[in-house]
């Protein structure tokens, strides 16, 4: 395989993991914009997506599409329940207490998953066959195409939701100014609940579409969640194209870094980028700086 083919190969795999990071990152950004919360438990919904699908598919013997749908529904319900039981009752939410509560939630969910499903790694079958296709000299699995397709679809639906539906517009209003939003009659608390539900939906979908490629286990959520957060930071916490580009960029850098430098340091690359961006451009690569208000 010559260098060009190799580079194309890295690009393909980078773009498909990048698409996953983008989906998870969008989940972060949606909650952050509606509530100002960084949901450290976001990665656990990615894990739930994969693990629940595995559970429904192999233990309860559901057909594959039903298992996937059920997994997304259960994860969404879990996300909404999490918000309802822990975030909403909080009397005086501070950034610190919210960080701790969502970390606590993430440990709790991970622990429950470990108790129910054990510590084994499981693989989901690919959506449609395992026959690699050859494009520009590089091989690509059908699952990669599924990942691209579903990600594009989700981003389109996301865009439609936020710009053309009443709930989506209400959530955007909350992100601009929560007090003003409640003054014009928007039920802010319902929007917060909705943002948790949507982001756990996105997270669980990401978890399902990547599980056939990378396998799934009770603890995959930590890394995937953090990478998703990196994507959102690179994109300046926008719930739109910025985060998607951030995810793809991160996926590409990781893939090239792992291929050309060292695979052991693959995960470190993401965090070095995260630190550099936070140090140099904390507002993200694609947005303008804001002045601090006291």
């Amino acid at each position, binding site marked *: 395989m010559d260098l060009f083919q190799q580079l194309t190969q890295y690009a393909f795999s980078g773009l498909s993991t990048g698409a996953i990071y983008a989906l998870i990152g969008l989940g972060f950004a949606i909650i952050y914009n509606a509530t100002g919360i960084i949901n450290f438990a976001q990665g656990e919904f990615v894990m739930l997506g994969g693990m629940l699908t595995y559970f429904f598919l192999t233990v309860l013997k559901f057909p594959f599409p039903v298992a996937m749908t059920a997994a997304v529904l259960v994860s969404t319900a879990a996300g909404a329940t999490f918000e309802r039981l822990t975030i909403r009752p909080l009397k005086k939410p501070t950034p*610190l207490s919210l960080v701790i509560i969502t970390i*606590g939630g993430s440990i*709790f969910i991970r622990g429950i998953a470990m108790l129910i499903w054990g510590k084994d790694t499981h693989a989901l079958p690919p959506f449609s066959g395992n026959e690699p296709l050859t494009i520009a000299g590089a091989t690509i699995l059908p699952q990669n195409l599924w990942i691209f397709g579903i990600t594009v679809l989700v981003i389109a639906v996301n865009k439609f939701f936020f710009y053309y539906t009443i709930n989506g517009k209400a959530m955007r209003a909350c992100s601009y100014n929560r007090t003003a939003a409640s003054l014009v009659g928007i039920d802010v608390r319902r929007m917060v609940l909705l943002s948790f539900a949507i982001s756990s939906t996105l997270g669980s979908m990401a978890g399902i579409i990547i599980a056939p490629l990378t396998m799934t286990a009770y603890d995959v959520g930590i890394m995937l969640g953090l990478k998703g957060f990196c994507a959102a930071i690179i994109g300046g916490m926008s719930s739109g194209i910025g985060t998607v580009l951030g995810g793809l960029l991160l996926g590409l850098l990781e893939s090239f870094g792992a291929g050309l430098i060292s695979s052991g340091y693959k995960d470190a690359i993401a965090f070095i980028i995260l*630190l550099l961006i*936070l140090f140099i451009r904390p507002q993200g690569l694609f947005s303008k700086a804001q002045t601090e208000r006291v």
Partner: protein
Amino acid sequence: MKRDYLLFLLFTLIVLVAPAAFKGGYLLNVLVFMGINTMLAVALNLLLGFAGQISLGHAAFFGLGAYISGILTATHGLNPWLTMLIAAVVVGILAFVLGFPILKLKGHYLAMATLGFGIIIYIVFNETVDTTGGPSGLTGIPNLKLGSLTFDGDMKNYYLIWVFTLVTMLLSINLAHSRIGRALRAIHDSEVASRVMGVNARLLKVQVFTLSAIISAVAGSLYAHTMTFISPASFGFNFSVELVTMVIIGGLGSIFGSFLGAALLTLLPEMLRVVQDYDIVVYGLLLILMTMFMPGGLVRGIPAAALALLAKMSGEKVRNAEG
């Protein structure tokens, strides 16, 4: 102020006589860990409780202290006391340099940046197999020696660790009551207001971050020399979270609170050993419930709960008397 020093004196006495109750054995070993954890929690509390700056990467400083000291003694045969000093200086310089860009960030961003730093260091511990031994760990770290006295038994280690812990606590209590302590609390309440009042907030935050990192590194060296074996698993993200939990559960800004938090989190896994894998669930639940219902931590929550209970009971008495 006087109250704190009296309490410290009482606490020191309890710590000094406590081993007599156990006569060695397994529990003494747990108490050694409790000392190391207390030291770490107090160090983090200076940053988190006083200056109000979160760090989700403190396990990295602890790990750096352990690995620098461990590698220099086990592989290069240096004196453990010297390596402890080297580790403290190196980590101090690193924290000082890193402190300026990292502490410019606030809230969630600061949490993520420190977390990222912690994970990078953790990956380095795992990947530099030639120097650190990688995931399987580093063995053959010598014990500390003082003249002909080698700190190799549980009892000796207990006193070694707790002397360091008590000194750390005393220094922190002093710091809390000093001008710097007040300035840090001012930064906690409002950074802008404190700067208006003439506090060099930026430098002070970096200084307390550095101090906190240095104490953690010393704790790491002590850990390496008492355990004689270290592996990256002890210095990962989970341990960073555990440290933050100790500080918060104990009570932000309270030195004795940090001890309570560290004590609880050291004993909890031992108590939950019977139920094995459930400990992680209980742990997550505890984190959520404590933040929701006891935001002031144990050190404020227990007296408040006791008072409330007392008030309720006496209220019932009054009602009974009336009836």
